């Protein structure tokens, strides 16, 4: 305890000295998110400095071992760090699929060379990663993937197409599921790391209904990949894939849903009050129900964290949180559109404020929440089968 308090004091002092004042203000939009990588353009010099300093300390990945560039902190120390960061309202230094998804599975499944090679670059935000999972014919049924990976003796040869690769056009490397055995399904999949600058890699952005293009189609044509880039054993990729999906589901729900405007504010502005309550009582009741669900969801994540700390196994909850989070965010966006009335019917132009356009675009973007990272249908299947023990035959 005394140690922890010392750590808190140290941390506070370091943050005071190293966190630039502009990094202690709320981010105005997704433009301010720092994704890192070789080609990343920082919105300003402070955000670059802030990433460099946090990365050097390993505090972008506080609990990863110091050997791999992490902070080497205990869970308790991490909690102190987070509370100190929150205290000064510090911005998140790095947004990264490497941190959220790839890193944890590398720690668990990769060999020493792979960890030494890739983890530090993730921590420092030097390499930006994308995820090569879905294919046109393999969405919910991910294990139906067909991207071929052949053993050519001194290298792997990869041919196929991925889809929904987030920011593939801006990524430096891709962690990718490939088929190394066509005679079996789940047991014929391997997990490889591919340098996106390799010859034969092409990306094409996909425009979404919201107008943004966070995803790409990615084509691999006779791409040569060094033998050492396979993580885990040959045909052992499915286990890694499932593990990684758990991390993804925990992180993705409600992701990219636009500015966090409050539906009550929107309703007050556009519907107005009458006798001190929202004039549209029907909408008001539905907003209240939504706000309650929002609170219940937040409480439940907190409860799961406490249970996890106490040693409980809460990994089975990931699918439930994914479904509930997606539903909640979609409900929020629908209510905002309804509350905004015709102020949410704009698409562009100066007659609408950026916030109003954000409501509309965010609402459209939110429709993907129940699809990306495992559809709601697939996750309900998982809850029914793994958590509730309901099976097809008995």
């Amino acid at each position, binding site marked *: 305890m005394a140690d922890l308090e010392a750590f808190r004091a140290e941390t506070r002092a370091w943050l005071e000295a190293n966190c630039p004042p502009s990094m202690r203000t709320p981010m105005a939009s997704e433009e301010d998110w720092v994704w890192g990588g070789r080609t990343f353009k920082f919105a300003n010099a402070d955000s670059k400095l802030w990433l460099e300093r946090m990365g050097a300390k390993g505090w972008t990945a506080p609990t990863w071992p110091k050997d791999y560039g992490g902070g080497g902190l205990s869970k308790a120390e991490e909690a102190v760090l987070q509370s100190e960061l929150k205290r000064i309202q510090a911005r998140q230094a790095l947004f990264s699929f490497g941190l959220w998804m790839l890193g944890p599975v590398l720690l668990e499944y990769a060999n020493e060379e792979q960890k030494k090679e890739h983890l530090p670059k993730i921590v420092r935000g030097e390499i930006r990663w994308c995820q090569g999972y879905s294919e046109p014919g*393999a969405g919910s049924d991910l294990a139906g993937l067909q991207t071929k990976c052949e053993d050519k003796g001194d290298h792997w040869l990869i041919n196929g197409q991925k889809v929904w690769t987030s920011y593939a056009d801006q990524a430096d490397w891709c962690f990718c599921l490939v088929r190394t055995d066509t005679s079996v399904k789940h047991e014929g999949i391997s997990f490889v790391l591919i340098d996106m600058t390799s010859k034969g890699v092409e990306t094409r952005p996909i425009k979404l209904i919201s107008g943004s293009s966070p995803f790409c189609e990615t084509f691999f044509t006779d791409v040569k990949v060094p033998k050492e880039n396979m993580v885990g054993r040959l045909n052992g990729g499915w286990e890694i894939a499932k593990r990684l999906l758990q991390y993804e589901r925990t992180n993705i729900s409600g992701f990219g849903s636009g500015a966090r405007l409050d539906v009550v504010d929107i309703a007050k502005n556009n519907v107005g009050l009458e006798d001190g309550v929202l004039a549209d009582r029907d909408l008001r009741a539905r907003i209240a129900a939504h706000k309650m669900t929002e609170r219940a969801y937040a409480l439940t994540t907190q409860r799961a964290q406490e249970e996890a700390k106490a040693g409980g196994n809460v990994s089975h909850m990931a699918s439930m949180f994914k479904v509930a989070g997606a539903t909640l965010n979609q409900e929020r966006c629908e209510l905002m559109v309804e509350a905004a009335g015709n102020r949410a019917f704009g*698409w562009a132009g100066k007659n609408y404020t950026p916030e109003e356009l954000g409501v509309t675009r965010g609402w459209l973007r939110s429709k993907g929440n129940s699809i990306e990272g495992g559809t709601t249908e697939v996750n309900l299947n998982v809850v029914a089968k793994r958590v509730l023990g309901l099976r097809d035959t008995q």
Partner: protein
Amino acid sequence: MTFTLNEEQRLLKDAARDFCREQAPVTRFRKMRDEKKNGRDPELWREMAQMGWAGIVVPEEHGGAGLGYVGLGLVLEETGRTLAASPLLSTAMIGASALVLGGSDKQKTEWLPKIAAGEVVTALAVDEGAHHSPEKSKLKAGGAKLSGQKTYVADGHIADLLIVSGADGVYLVKADATGVTHAELVTVDSRGAADIAFENAEAEPLNGGTKLIEAILDRARIGLAAEMLGQAQEAFEITGEYLKTRKQFGQVIGGFQALQHRAAKMFTDLELTRSCVYAALDALDRGAEDIATWASLAKARASDTLHLVSNEFVQMHGGIGMTDAHDAGFYLKRARVAEGLYGGAGYHRDRFARLHDY
């Protein structure tokens, strides 16, 4: 009341379906959207007028077909299916109704033949804020001059003649009259609209006062409900086809019971909504007294059903439904605008309850 179509209505429906499939498929809407025309496709409107649609409810003596609202509703339903972008609702349904119901002989003679010929596009300027609440209009007429603000006038950016609701009645205002200023809105459904301001603009009153406002609005609501029914039906059918062909886990996804049950519920919703829309159109033709009830019923049900179906359209298509290259987004975007226009489901539930004294 009847749900049975007569011969003329059946022919009209078949012709509308053929026209929309051949002349105005969704690809035409996509092209208009890609070219950022914001709802403008005057050639399509000309073709529709040649089909006689602009004058379906205009009496024969004023150059129309006098075929009634059921006929026009069937056409609107078909245009809804393919998202055909035109001022058909604003002009053939709303503009024609306003003049037939409230026009003097002189006004009728002046405008109805032009409407029926598709030479004049009209638009209804009713809302004055973010939400539909015609009973709270602040628009005032001093003598024959009108002053005030109207928001989100559907087709207001392409209209020649504005039907303007005020605190005490309905006015005709020429779009190019002095004192009228437009701000064109680039809208999410790619159909366009306008905020319109009036400052001592020359205006001609229609007969009927505030009652006329509701009479016109109820026709707008019922016509829009017909368009929405078509959208929902088409979205449902495309989704049904996808469920029968898309395979995952070694079988067509339409074989998964959870999706089957959701599809069956959508089907039920659609059937129930269809009955409400047709009954409301029939009520107009019958000259029923409780049009307000029928209009709120049709608009509320169509809104709820289209809301559900447009969401499932995307969800059941998975990732592909989220892409701009697929049509699902078009239906989703048009759905929310249509839901809100002339009162959303919540507005009409409240009105329905009030009409029934609770």
